[in-house]
């Protein structure tokens, strides 16, 4: 018995030593955020802690199969160890201590750091998910994009996330961070990007939906780019930043409404009027409980659209001065049933 225990102990030590060396290998792709670094460090800590546990089981299992195996039916029985007495109690105490230890560190000590939200982030980014695309908004400047998420390096970013239809999940593998986008809720996440890069050079820099959301879930992605402050400012300006943000653009007001059942019955009014030569601010009131609508006006080949929001909600969109004529408008969520005509005189 002592000889067996000595050999298993030796096997365990050798396997543990080998495992701890293997656990140093950098096998993850690099991270691009401060919290990503914390998460990677936590992962490494857990990996190192789990090595001796894993090798302990493997050493006993492997050695027993090797040393105690019989060809064919064994004659007689094994040593009748009942497992009463102090050994199981000691096992219980040791494993409990290990479990409590791993709960405290790295569990409870690292948790608040990773989920911590910056009260005053440098940049606020609103992310909205819908089947099956992302859109991002920078409310401090009014910039918007449906094609890429651009973030400045070394700035605290605060995300405000929601969805207009089903549950999605915001995940950028290179940042390691993730939070679900839930309809009717705003969820929050914050971190600081720590290196510049883009999707072209690192496929982990993509905003990937990671909660099953239907047909095109796998390809519900948006490239992510981390840039310098100067590049960020240029990008904001090129994407509608710098305009006054807020609900009203100060144009002539035109109001329209959708009531319950609008998805089949259409807008409350099918015709709208406005004056030519003056910018127009449309105020769209969605009173259709829980159903997502928006208002989109098409003029000169361009579409001016409000956000999508479930009722009750009010959305606005500014349209530049238009020449006299008629222009179609519709709800992009219900383009066949919710249509109308804007007459500019």
């Amino acid at each position, binding site marked *: 018995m002592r000889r067996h225990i000595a050999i298993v102990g030796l096997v365990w030590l050798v396997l543990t030593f080998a495992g701890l060396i293997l656990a140093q290998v950098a096998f993850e792709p690099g991270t691009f955020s401060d919290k990503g670094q914390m998460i990677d460090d936590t992962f490494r800590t857990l990996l190192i802690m789990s090595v001796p546990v894993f090798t302990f089981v493997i050493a006993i299992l492997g050695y027993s*199969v090797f040393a105690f195996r019989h060809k064919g039916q064994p004659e007689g029985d094994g040593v009748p160890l009942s497992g009463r007495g102090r050994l199981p109690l000691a096992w219980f105490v040791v494993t409990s201590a290990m479990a409590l230890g791993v709960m405290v560190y790295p569990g409870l000590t690292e948790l608040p750091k990773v989920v911590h939200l910056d009260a005053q982030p440098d940049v606020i980014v609103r992310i909205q998910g819908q089947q099956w695309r992302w859109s991002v908004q920078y409310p401090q400047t009014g910039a918007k994009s449906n094609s890429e998420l651009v973030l400045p390096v070394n700035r605290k970013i605060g995300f405000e996330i929601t969805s207009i239809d089903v549950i999605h999940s915001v995940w950028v593998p290179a940042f390691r961070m993730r939070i679900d986008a839930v309809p009717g809720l705003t969820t929050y996440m914050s971190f600081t990007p720590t290196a510049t890069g883009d999707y072209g050079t690192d496929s982990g820099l993509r905003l990937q939906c990671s909660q*099953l959301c239907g047909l095109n879930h796998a390809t519900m992605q948006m490239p992510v780019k981390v840039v310098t402050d100067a590049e960020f400012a240029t990008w904001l300006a090129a994407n509608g930043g710098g305009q006054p943000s807020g609900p009203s653009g100060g144009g002539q007001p035109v109001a329209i409404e959708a009531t319950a059942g609008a998805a089949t019955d259409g807008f409350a009014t099918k015709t709208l009027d406005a004056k030519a030569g003056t910018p127009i601010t449309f105020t769209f009131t969605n009173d259709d409980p829980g159903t997502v609508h928006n208002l989109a006006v098409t003029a000169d080949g361009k579409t001016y659209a409000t956000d999508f929001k479930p009722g009750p909600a009010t959305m606005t969109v500014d349209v530049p001065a238009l020449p006299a004529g008629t222009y179609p408008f519709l709800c992009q969520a219900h383009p066949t049933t919710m249509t109308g005509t804007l007459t500019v005189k």
Partner: protein
Amino acid sequence: MTIAAAGTPPATRRPSAIRGFFPILRGLLFAVIGGLIGAGIAIAIRSAMGVDPFDRTPSANGTIPSTEQIVTVAFIVAALGWLLGVGFWESTVRGWLGYQIKGVPTDWRRYLTVSEDHKVIGIQYLATFIVVLLIAGLGAMTMRAQLSQPGNTLLSPDTYNRIMSFHGIAMVSVAVASVMGSFGNYFVPIMIGARDMAFPRLNSLSFWLVPIVIVSLFLSQLLGGWDSGWTAYPPLSVKNASGQIMFNLAIIVFGLSSILGGINFIVTIVKMRAPGMSWGRVPIFVWSVFSAAILATFFTQFFAASLTMVLLDRIAGTGFFVGQGGAPLLYEHTFWFYSHPAVYIFVLPGFGMALEVLAHLSRKPLFAYRWAVAAFIGIVGLSGIVWAHHMFVSGMPNALLGPFLVTTELISIPTGLIFLSALGTIWMGRLWLTTPMLFALGFVFNFVIGGVTGIFLADVPTDVSLHDTYFVVAHFHYTIIGGEIFALFAAFYFWFPKMTGRMLSERLGKINFWIMFIFFNLTFLPMFWAGLHGMNRRIATYQNDLANVNLFISISAWILGSSFLVFVINVLWSLLSKRAARAEANPWKARTLEWLVSSPPPVENFPSTPIVVGSPYGYGTGGRPHAVFGLAGASDEEVTA
């Protein structure tokens, strides 16, 4: 009523093969008739309410409520029709109406109708779930074909999502019912020295609800299938194709089957143990089924309630989860109330099975028996307070993260005790490396990987990064295939001789084990790596830089799949070949009660009531046997624990 047409043929007439299938064919016919009647009722109610019965106007969620209402009512009546047709008319309803209940055939045809014999029901469960396992496995093979290269166009995204969703729920049903329903039903009564389960008729009802579930999951494909996975999170499950309602109805029925089975096991194990079978002498497999039965009885209702609310959102416009005031997170909570305990319904009988085989085939007492029992009870207790570890990134309040991290990691303590018992049992044993023993040892190897990687997911900081990636896919396949399915195979190879009276080929069994063990690990170990490299789960395509690892996984998975062919050949050869060896009463020289009777056991299980006089695991002690058969007429009162 004219339904009572099916009589038992006179004993003198040789039954034809067709007649054996008569109850099932009649059940299908009645299901169709029931479905038509149900549809008629729904149409009549809609007409009476003054609405167009076939109104095609979509709801605010884009679904067609009229169709779904008709399908729902049709489903309910069709399910009742199926049950009546398949045999509950003869076995049950006739009795309610004051007629004499008809007997069940005693030959092979009893497997194809309502039998109340727990051994027949066990085999019905086993055959059914092996078929489901193979079909759902084919689904996995198809998914791996699609994922063998990025941007593959073999399957459309919709087809992929539907196969993935089907694979998920079908395998979950296998995991819930394969060990419990088959080996639990067959062996728990024998191992405790009982003649049958406490409620034999309820037991048959538990089984005959299952075909409804499986057929409905297939029929749902005619209604567009469902693409919301086995989790069916709303709002997606309120807005997707109408196949979703068939999923909901099917799984509600499956839940009913589970609850009925759970109650039956609890009562059987508490009330029907043979004289002398004190709680300290109950075989560990029985303890594990008892624990899982408690979970099934008390938690399944939460899943059924969640699915009912989704169903009502679709057919009655209730708005639990969508629209103003709808709360999608509510579903996630109530769903995981059940679905986390459910993973212990999967794996506890697997633990019990593996420990049982390890003890008998190491020729040693089960090490630290009482601690292993305590571990089961501890897991039952803790499993109810860990559910929200599935929701660390759901947007629930941050204050809940810490408590659920703590409760989840607490579960590693009782799980550790199972390892103590397993390792202590093989230590200094005389290991008889037969196929069931190899599978039980494989279980220990796989489960330690599944268990250790679970810590990374219980820890919030790492879960934020790993959640919904292939790291999770690898982890739960390690626990469910590597754990429960390996234990299922251990049980199958261990008990097949007892159930059929025939031995399986050891050579084919070992080939089966080694292919399965090696390629299981080669399939799922690389998935941890893929997850760390940004591969999220439930996707029909992925980034180009993950091409190599996915091709490797796909090839390994196909070889893993082929190991099941070896298994099927082994079983068929043993059952059909005249040269297959016959099994004696106790081929493994084991001590528990099932080995004291012939293979297969007689209908009444025992010649007389067994009297339990010692431990089921008294190997090497030279002491008393586990049980003796009492004198005829010995009453229960004469021997007490």
